[in-house]
């Protein structure tokens, strides 16, 4: 099974603890709430709803216990896709983006209201059905502005389960990038990189040209320079991850050729997302 959407359907996204918005009652939350499904007992605490005091147990034991019910969650999953030019730097990377999008639509389907947003210029919503088929026409990767510079706010829902897929290769400070997690119930940032971005094999005299800004710089690249690049990339990712953590978000990295295609996608999900509590098998 290599269809990323179907792969995603084998999992479900773990929702935020406090859903906000979306149709009520579609999923049970992890916290106790006001649904009819019993969750557990605990000792009565002042302020507890007296309707939930277990009067029978009080009669039997003389102790006041409060019945807790699982909270009903009406969750929204937002999948934000970086539609900048850099996301089609290689065909592999572009295919990886579409595969991840389909995967997360599949994982969010059924129990969440799925909303897809293209972080294009200007940003706009995307039909999630189109993302299921990984159709290139559904998402044009043409934006020349970096993700933090786009007016995404009006398209994002507060409390939603937010998955942002981007390479996060822009020179903005990590706090600016991490602000994309603001208002989300949970925020998962997937850093999709081509293998050549993560482990560049460039050597010699090169005129490096930024695919988005068009800026150029003539440089001599040797193995030491490549190593310095890798170190900088690692520092950037670490700083972004730390910043996201402060906002309750998570950063995971996926390599387009290894992690975002076929069986690699399932392996990546098990390796990166399940341990982090983002996916559970249905």
């Amino acid at each position: 099974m290599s269809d990323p959407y179907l792969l995603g359907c084998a999992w479900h996204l773990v929702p935020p603890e406090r859903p906000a918005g979306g149709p009520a009652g579609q999923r049970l939350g992890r916290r106790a709430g006001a649904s009819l499904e019993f969750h557990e007992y605990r000792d009565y605490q002042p302020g507890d709803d007296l309707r939930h005091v277990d009067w029978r147990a009080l009669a039997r034991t003389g102790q006041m216990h409060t019945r807790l019910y699982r909270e009903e969650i009406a969750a929204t999953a937002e999948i934000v896709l970086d539609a900048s030019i850099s996301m089609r730097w290689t065909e592999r990377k572009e295919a990886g983006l579409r595969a991840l999008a389909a995967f997360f639509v599949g994982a969010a389907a059924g129990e969440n209201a799925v909303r897809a947003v293209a972080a294009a210029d200007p940003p706009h919503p995307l039909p999630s059905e189109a993302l299921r088929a990984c159709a290139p026409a559904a998402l044009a990767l043409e934006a020349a502005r970096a993700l933090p510079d786009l007016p995404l706010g009006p398209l994002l829902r507060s409390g939603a389960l937010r998955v942002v897929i981007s390479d996060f290769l822009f020179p903005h400070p990590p706090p600016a990038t991490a602000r994309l997690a603001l208002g989300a119930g949970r925020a998962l940032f997937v850093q999709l990189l081509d293998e050549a971005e993560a482990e560049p094999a460039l050597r010699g005299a090169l005129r490096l040209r930024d695919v988005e800004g068009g800026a150029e710089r003539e440089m001599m690249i040797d193995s030491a320079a490549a190593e310095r690049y890798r170190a900088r990339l690692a520092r950037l990712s670490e700083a972004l991850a730390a910043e996201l953590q402060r906002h309750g978000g998570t950063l995971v990295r996926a390599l387009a050729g290894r992690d975002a295609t076929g069986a690699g996608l399932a392996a990546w999900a098990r390796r990166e997302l399940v341990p982090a509590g983002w996916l559970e098998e249905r």
Partner: protein
Amino acid sequence: MSWFGAPLGLFALLALPAVIALHFFRRRHRDQPVTGLFLWLDAGLDAAAGPRRQPLRRDPVLWLECAAALLAALFLADFRPLGPATAQHVVVVLDDSASMSAAEPGAGGHDTRARAIEEAEARIAETGRRGRVTLVRSGRRPLLLAGPAALAAEARAALAAWHPAAPDHDLGPALAFARELAVGGRITLLTDAPLPAAARPADVEVVAIGRALENAGFAGAERVPVSAEEDEIRATARGYAAAGLTRALTFRAAGQELRTQTLSLAPGVPVRIALRIPRATPAVTLELAADALRADDRADLPPPPRRPVRLRVDLEEPAGAILGLGRAAEILPEVQIAGPGAPADWVIGHAPAPAPAWSLVLPRGAGALESFLGPFVAERRWRLLEGVTLDGVLWTRATDFAMPGLARVAVGDLPLLAEAVESGATVLRLNLVAARSTLHQSPDWPIFLLNLTEAVRSGLPGPRATALAAGEAFVYRAPEPADLRLAGPGVERAWTAADYLEVDDLAPAPEYVLSGPEGARVRFAVNLLDAAESDLTTRGSGESGATAAAFGSARADSPFRLALLAALLAILGANWWLLNRRGAA
């Protein structure tokens, strides 16, 4: 030298090591699109950090650029392996005026002639191996020294033999002559003073190679018979300098010093010298101490020619007495009065004399008379009327006197003096009744007689003069046709059965000898007596005009140059294509 029309263009070969050096340090920056340029900015070594020497790659681009540099150098240097397709032609006009021979006294000083030869040699060298050279010597009549389109060797030989000595003259005829000979080639004028802006020809390269020098020289010199026993040497010397000059003057004759004196020559003030010598004295040489211009420091004055005019008066008295003809021998130079019936060169009477004598025929005045106070119409440019005005003259004519011939003086439509040629002799009819006229009392009468005497004398055998100023023609009339030969420094001319010679453009020289079959007939000298040439203070140097453009366009027309240019462009195009292709890759 001969392979290249413009050897300076070979400096472009310096581009070869430059190209190779650039390839040593060249970095070929491949285009590489990246997504996170900012991550590289501190990672990579910036190209601006300074070049590093790298191994030279055997790259087609290197070979193409080396070939382009080589071709560019050959193109700029006008490389012609087989010589120019059309031989380059330069016409060098040499100012032949005497001042071009000026030289600072002492070794190593400025020598105008030597500088002119150097410049001419340089122009000749520029024409290359197959170049052609035409040398034109300026003068009143420009002369071809070499060519037209002579080989360089011939031109060099002619240059070596060139010694400028002509009097002041216009350079225009020489330039016009050069233009006719150049046929699109280069024209260079070598002179010793920059031309005034208005006189600079645009199509001629004018190179002035003179230098302002002080000089003293003779501005005039003549030997005049003053009596039957004596001649007088009359000379004028001038100094040309900002300050006064002092020069020693020596008179010599037959190797003996006649007199020595010191002249003080103030600027612009002529100093006149006179010396009487016995008539039998041979040629006298006047010599000033040597200075920048040697040609004007010497004047040679051979004995003047003796050509007395025999005059016979056949007029009835009192006309002859009224006209003062009895004193003609006193007032007219070198005139002898012939007795009645004696042979004469000129006869004044009432009827024409037999040829070849000239006749001045007057009426007897017996018939009707008619008097006029003017206005008289005189042909003043006629040599016999030069200086004659007829102002205030009362003229009485005989109404029955026939006046055939060309009227030279008239009143109204009545001729008063007419010239005719009868039986090969000149007959002048002067319708003047002396007793009723005042012409003989006016200054016009002796002037007319003097003019007439000299006109008669000019028809007599012998030289007109034996001490000529440069530029003046040597004129000689032989008693009868004979084979004649003229010899002098650099001159050897001969004539067959000639009875009249007029030779001009003779360079200053102490002695020329005209010989007939029997031997030497006349010895004469030509002296530089030209203040314009002696004045060296106005000389200078400089260059003007431009023929480089025309010369350059001639080179551009060369098929080989065009082929070089085409190859160069093709190589540059190929190089550009290669580099572009690499950029795209």
